[in-house]
């Protein structure tokens, strides 16, 4: 018996040392391959990556290091140096949220370079993960640690049913052929998680904007699937280079089936 318990202690000690070593390395190379790979602990991310070849770089995920308001944390994803590859699909995960999935984006051929921004909910400090699938079947994973602190002030939760489902978009006045332009979209919606009690102590059931789509003359530019980890008043800023002039059509769908549509003109100069 003494030998047995000794064996356990020594394995334990080795594990502890290994963990300490890993965290030291992590400090030495922040953001490096050794420090990260949190995604390997998240089933949804592992499944998304599958057996695909993983590229080292090309995807930049940006979030604030410290977020005082976990209900609305700005998130930016940008791709660069992909050498002709295009990102077709992008998945965002917040592993420690009640629902780790945050959003899934699919991009049409007019999005040659991903540059998007949205706002997400983080229930606690964690490492946010972005998994991008390229047009040639490769995968890029980006991670970013965010510390979420308690909110310094009691923010008034403003929810006005009258302005719900009010959508607005901003597109460039004119586009230059081949150049990218920036599109801002937002819809007023409380994105009820179904997890939190309201002021009267009741917990309303989940009701969120489930999907968003922007298409140019019927061809999808950005298709998004949203989950309850996306912030209230879903906001999406993205860039694309229209291959043709015509009607840019935006559509949001609530999980009840309610839809809102907005159409803008794209004219090429």
């Amino acid at each position: 018996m003494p030998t047995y318990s000794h064996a356990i202690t020594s394995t334990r000690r080795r594990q502890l040392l290994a963990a300490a070593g890993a965290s030291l390395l992590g400090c030495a190379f922040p953001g490096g391959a050794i420090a990260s790979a949190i995604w390997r602990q998240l089933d949804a991310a592992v499944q998304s990556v599958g057996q695909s070849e993983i590229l080292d770089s090309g995807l930049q995920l940006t979030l604030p290091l410290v977020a005082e308001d976990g209900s609305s944390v700005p998130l930016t994803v940008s791709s660069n140096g992909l050498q002709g590859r295009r990102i077709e699909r992008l998945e965002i995960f917040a592993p420690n949220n009640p629902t780790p999935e945050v959003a899934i984006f699919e991009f049409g051929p007019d999005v040659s370079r991903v540059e998007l921004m949205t706002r997400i909910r983080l229930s606690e400090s964690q490492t946010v993960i972005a998994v991008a699938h390229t047009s040639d079947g490769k995968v890029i994973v980006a991670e970013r640690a965010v510390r979420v602190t308690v909110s310094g002030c009691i923010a008034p939760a403003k929810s006005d049913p009258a302005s719900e489902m009010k959508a607005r978009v901003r597109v460039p006045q004119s586009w230059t052929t081949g150049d990218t332009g920036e599109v801002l979209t937002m819809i007023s919606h409380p994105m009820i998680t179904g997890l939190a009690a309201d002021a009267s102590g009741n917990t309303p059931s989940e009701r969120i904007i489930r999907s968003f789509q922007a298409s140019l003359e019927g061809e999808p530019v950005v298709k998004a699937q949203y989950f309850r980890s996306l912030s209230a008043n879903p906001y999406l800023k993205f860039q694309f280079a229209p291959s043709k002039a015509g009607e840019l059509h935006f559509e949001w769908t609530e999980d009840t089936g309610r839809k809102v549509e907005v159409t803008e003109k794209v004219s090429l100069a």
Partner: protein
Amino acid sequence: MSHIELVLWVGLAIGLVFGAVGQATGFCLQRGLVQRWGRKGGFKLQAFALALATALIGTQALAALGLIDLSSSLYMAPRYSWLLLPVGGLLFGYGMGLANGCGARALVLLGTGNLRSFVVLLCLGIAAYMTLTGVIAPLRIALSDPTTIEPALITLPVGALRTAVTLLAGLALILYALRRPTETPEAERPRRWSDLAGGLVIGLLVVLGWFATGWLGNDDFEPLPVISLTFVAPIGDVIQYAMLATGMSLRFGIAVVVGVVLGSLALSLLRRQYQLRSFQAPQQMLRYIAGGALMGAGGALAMGCSIGQGLTGLSTLSFSSMISAIFIVLGARLAWTLHLRNA
């Protein structure tokens, strides 16, 4: 230039002017109160009253014209703790007495080479963050949750009464500000108009701050928080930004704080009044450290300082700001009675 950058530049400009005015006139609620309570004479409290009148009337005018929406500001929060606002106000006021001036005054003095203020500011900023999000935050939340109330009225309803109160309070403050000096010694009297002019400008800066964040910063997609001059959390923000700039964006308050120090520094150099000053004794240093820490923690609990609640908060006519502001003055009175009266 994006609306965010524009608001930051305006914030920096507001800070520069605040710093210069503070350096030139010595604008300070604490000094005003001490002058009044000690019957020493002087115009600091009257300058503060004029700043408040200007801020109140100007801010209410902006809101009445529909240019800014105060309802999303911190001061219009529908719920607050009936315990923490008074306690925070008392702590802040008491700390202000110990440190001989509020956070904004310490920023101005730092610009003139006063290293005592540097210590006060470090303690203030760190204590504020300890209370807001750090080790004291769980205690703050534990005290706040059972004492949080949701009053039916958080401010006067829009209408004739609100307009009347704004105008009457503004008028009363202006009359007080312009009252003829009686106790003031002859030597102090030339300062009257410059002190009052300083108060007027600082009141206008509060209005400009509301305009910057509430109108210039009111983007459909990325609206900025509607705020104006306040100094507790922003001093903590500056310290945090210094350490985490790669993972944090600039905010209006940070630009203002930096501007105040630079504005005061520039004017004190121009007027050849820049001079390094430090503590004379360890006991004095201890007192300033305590004062800074109490101002930081108290200001975080009271959701603002003598400027943040005393001018900016009151300019919204928020009832919670009135509670905080009254207790800030009571705290300052306590410090005066205990420590300053016989000094």
